[in-house]
């Protein structure tokens, strides 16, 4: 027992959480006693007795779990525990529930955890559609409904789309650039373990008096500053998810900039690496703004700081500026890694170099730069300075240009190629092009102030964001998961089930989200549990498609679980790709490479006679290039 308490792990983590929580509670009592405040009675929105322990308990858990052991020992001058890489592979499923610094283990931890949140958030979506299937309120009341869509969005954004890309890149990116691991493995592990903390806070808010947070994922003040206790869970959950995101982005930046294999110049990086470089540039500079916005709301709630209290001189609209200064770049944080995935999949499965590689990379950078100057297009009707609207409209419309470059370059890649559609990943990539184009078109329309004035805060917005986030991001996530499934698990998935999942998802996405455009333009506002009866039939149809879309995801789940356990063994390079991660075994060896590969050419040189991307260990430079499918296959 004492050994279990001394060892980092779940028991020590639980003890840490309890101790830290108790310390926080005591701290509140002590401070209230000193200040002469009543010890327990507090105002409705405050609850410092809950909020302060909620800040400290997750940190206590992380400390107990072992996230800080190495650093603390080192800082205190104690002998550090030897921590070299050979200790850190996963030998059994239990190793995935430990503080583990292997990027491949962390990648799997990320992906599995975020898909858990995907299915949880999906269930919330099913409840939302059940309620909306008929006018009037049937399943949940209006207040509970507000909690449903708020938690649905928060979980899908902060705990699925953003981190699942970090998970895929965590696994794939070091392999792609020929690195043995990420630059900061311990920071990487800490980044992952902060995510479940955010998840516990978001989901735990359902237990709070007054229900889960219900001011939308946008949490606009002053609705959020006056909301019941659940809102504080959101404020804090965002901090953990955001810190996780920032730390991972720093890690990617340093890894990409300093750990590329010899010979891998910037112009020889696969586009997935470019995409994560761009995304990380957005995350490190933008995410602190949402952290700040949520801290300001939290302080307004428990410390009466009055940032957003108009009666005390606060400025209500400033919340939206700070929030969207993060949350608009966030939509590109949720899209650029997907662009990277699509580039890999389309080039490999059409057996052709990516069309206009350099312009593709520059388009990513262009999006990064522009996306910092468009945030106020979310606020055209918000009552902000009116002259801010036209410049923000123009930048918003211009950001369609680099995005269009990417669409046309993917199409150009297909021409004069040999297109193979046997892989579910390729099907999702091709469907993504069309679906995302629709989301892009509605985005351009929304960027135009007069149209936006009419459809802002209606179902048109709901349709648009789901076309870009589901038809866009989630399609790319599926493409990525199917694409690298053989590499990650060492098994092949079932393409037949993959096809069922693909067609069901495609039809479900269009059936669910296309009609939302129509009812939005016709006058149905968003975020309502009840609506005018004239929209009843459309909503019933939308709900039917939504249930189908939800159900078909179970096929994906089944395919993934069963194939991981029983699927046929995967060869090292089932897609005959050039990039480095496919030149090692599936799954890759514990050190990734026996010897760091040397990069001698671009990553997409299909059809170029004698071209080669990387020379792996054991291959002499003078040896003529073997066919890629032979390399590393076992």
């Amino acid at each position, binding site marked *: 027992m004492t050994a279990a308490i001394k060892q980092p792990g779940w028991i020590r983590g639980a003890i840490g959480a309890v101790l830290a929580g108790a310390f926080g509670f005591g701290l509140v009592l002590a401070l209230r006693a000193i200040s002469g405040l009543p010890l327990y009675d507090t105002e409705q929105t405050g609850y410092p007795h809950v909020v302060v322990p909620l800040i400290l308990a997750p940190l206590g858990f992380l400390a107990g779990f072992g996230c800080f052991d190495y650093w603390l020992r080192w800082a205190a001058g104690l002998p550090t525990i030897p921590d070299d890489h050979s200790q850190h592979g996963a030998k059994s499923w239990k190793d995935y529930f430990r503080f583990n610094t292997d990027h491949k283990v962390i990648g799997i931890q990320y992906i599995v955890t975020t898909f858990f949140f995907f299915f949880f958030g999906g269930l919330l979506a099913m409840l939302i559609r059940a309620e909306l299937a008929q006018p009037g309120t049937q399943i949940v*009341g*209006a207040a509970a409904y*507000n909690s449903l869509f708020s938690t649905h969005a928060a979980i899908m954004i902060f705990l699925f789309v953003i981190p699942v890309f970090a998970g895929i890149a965590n696994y794939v990116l070091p392999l792609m650039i020929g690195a043995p691991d990420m630059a900061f493995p311990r920071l990487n592990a800490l980044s992952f373990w902060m995510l479940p903390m955010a998840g516990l806070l978001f989901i735990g808010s359902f237990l709070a008096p007054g229900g889960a947070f*219900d001011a939308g994922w946008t949490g*606009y003040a*002053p*609705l959020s500053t*006056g909301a019941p206790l659940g809102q504080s869970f959101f404020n804090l959950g965002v901090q953990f998810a955001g810190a996780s995101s920032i730390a991972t982005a720093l890690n990617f930046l340093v890894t990409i900039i300093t750990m590329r294999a010899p010979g891998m110049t910037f112009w020889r990086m696969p586009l997935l690496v470019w995409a994560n470089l761009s995304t990380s540039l957005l995350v490190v500079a933008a995410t602190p703004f949402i952290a700040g916005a949520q801290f300001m709301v939290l302080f307004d709630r428990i410390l009466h700081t009055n940032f957003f209290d*108009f009666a005390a001189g606060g400025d209500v609209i400033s919340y939206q500026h700070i929030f969207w200064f993060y949350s608009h770049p966030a939509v590109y944080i949720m899209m650029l890694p997907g662009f990277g995935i699509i580039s890999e999949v389309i080039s490999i499965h059409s*057996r*052709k*170099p990516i069309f*206009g590689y350099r312009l593709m990379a520059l388009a990513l950078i262009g999006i990064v730069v522009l996306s910092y100057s468009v945030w106020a297009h979310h606020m055209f*009707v*918000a*009552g902000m*300075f*009116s*002259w801010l*609207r*036209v410049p923000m*409209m123009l930048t918003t*419309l*211009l950001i369609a*240009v680099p995005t*269009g*470059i990417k*669409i*046309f*370059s993917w*199409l*150009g890649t*297909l*021409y*004069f*190629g*040999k*297109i*193979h559609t046997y892989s579910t990943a390729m099907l999702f990539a*091709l469907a993504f*092009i*069309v679906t995302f*184009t629709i989301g892009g078109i509605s985005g351009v329309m929304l960027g*135009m*102030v*007069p*149209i936006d004035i*009419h459809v*802002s*805060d*209606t179902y048109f917005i709901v349709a648009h964001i789901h076309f870009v986030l589901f038809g866009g991001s989630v399609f790319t996530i599926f493409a990525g998961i199917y694409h690298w499934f053989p590499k990650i698990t060492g098994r092949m998935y079932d393409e037949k089930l993959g096809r069922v999942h693909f067609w069901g998802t495609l039809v479900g996405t269009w059936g669910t989200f296309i009609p939302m455009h*129509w009812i939005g*333009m*016709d006058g149905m*506002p968003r975020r309502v*549990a009840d609506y005018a009866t004239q929209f009843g039939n459309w909503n019933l149809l939308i709900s039917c498609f939504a249930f189908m879309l939800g159900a078909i995801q179970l096929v994906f789940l089944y395919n993934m679980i069963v194939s991981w356990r029983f699927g046929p063994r995967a060869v090292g390079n089932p897609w*005959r790709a050039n990039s480095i991660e496919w030149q090692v075994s599936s799954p890759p060896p514990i050190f990734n490479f026996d010897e760091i590969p040397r990069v001698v050419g671009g990553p997409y*040189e*299909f*059809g170029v006679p004698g071209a080669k991307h990387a020379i792996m260990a054991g291959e002499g430079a003078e040896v003529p290039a073997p066919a890629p499918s032979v390399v590393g296959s076992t």
Partner: protein
Amino acid sequence: MYGRLPIVKMLAATVALAAAISAVMVSINWDGQEASTAAPKIDDLLNVMIVVSSFVFSLVVVMLFYALWKFRAKPGDESDGEPIHGNTRLEIAWTLIPTIIVLFGGGYSWKVLNEIEKPAKNPLTVDVFSQQYAWSFGYPGKGDAYVEGEMHVPVNRQVQFKMHAQDVIHSFWVPEWRIKKDNVPGITTTAIVTPDRVGTYQLICTELCGFGHASMRAKVVVEPPGQFQRWVAGLKQKVPKPLAESVVQDTESNPVPLTAGGA
């Protein structure tokens, strides 16, 4: 090598598809009844964008399906495609043409925006008070007459709504007018509408304001000026004190006053 493609046929297919999509989509009245001078302008902009977008969408679809039809690998074909790395002219074209299209759309939108927000000489001012979960209205030019849950305005005269939220943010939207504006606590926001169609409409709150958000509605009646004058003269209530205070206290400096371009 792109000369080998049937460019003319592909463009013809694109135009045909775009024309078909546009014909269907423009004929549908997406936004519902038009009841203000702004509505046809916004709907026209929408229709122009539908036509432009149909072309872009058709181009993508035709390009994609032609490639899938023409360049599909035969079963068992393990060879690679042609090693084409790009085409500078094409890349310049699909950078410049979309830029021109979106800048055209931006300029057109800007023009529409200026038109629909142009202040008239003799507008009627209506104070809009929003609170969880009800609307009420004051008529400052009519002896501060006050009414709850139902608003009347004259037809064919510009109305400037001065909005005063009392608690959280609400948003003022009459779909038939196509005009929406948030009501923000602490500041006065303004919406400009010239109703041009007599009728009864619904004012909808479109900014999440709490559990009663979905039911925060008010009746809007647009009627001939004479009828409106009689209705407003018949109002017994005056604007209650707390609401009147909010009109005075709300700062007008943010957003800038209408003379500097509207809010």
